[in-house]
């Protein structure tokens, strides 16, 4: 069995887990300049308090994805 054949299950698993699409956010990524909250209930309270809309980004991955 070739090395490539041995790698297929690993690559397939990584792909299905989304790892291939999740390049970690660079330290200087502009997205990290946004003051993200990570708790929706807290964001609801903050929005009600300051009277601003909520931008909720629902995504399969961490804010600083190390995948």
């Amino acid at each position, binding site marked *: 069995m070739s090395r490539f054949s041995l790698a297929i299950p690993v690559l397939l698993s990584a792909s299905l887990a*989304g790892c291939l*699409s999740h390049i970690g956010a660079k330290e200087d990524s*502009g997205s990290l300049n946004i003051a993200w909250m990570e708790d929706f209930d807290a964001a609801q309270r*903050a929005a*009600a308090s300051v009277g601003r809309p*909520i*931008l909720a*980004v629902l995504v*399969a991955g961490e804010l600083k994805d190390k995948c």
Partner: protein
Amino acid sequence: MLRDGALSDAEVVDLVNNQFVPVWINVRTTPVPDLACMEEVLHNVRVNANGFIQGSFSQGFFLRSVVLASDGETLLNPQPGGASLGDLFTEGHFKYGQVKPQHYLPMLRQALDRARQLSEERARTGAVTSDSP
């Protein structure tokens, strides 16, 4: 794609920081918010009883940007119709899946306009609100 696309755009970053309360929800580890409007946002997406997105594809590639009024419930960026490949070709993105600044900025600005309208309507009818960009 979103992180290094729209969310890294200086204009988007400024607008989000100055006009919104931004929240990052990792659907791999966090249930989706239990809101009525999520039925439209999550059209054709399998969600279990605990609010977690199901399916290996969604676990890997899920992305939605949702704007809610300061009441935390009213959807301000409605994009009805559900996801379809046609949207990708005609609009350049799936519903709620904008990743480029040229698509993201108008979506955010339209949501702010709706927030302003909602605030004015509620002021006229006497309902309490403070949504106003």
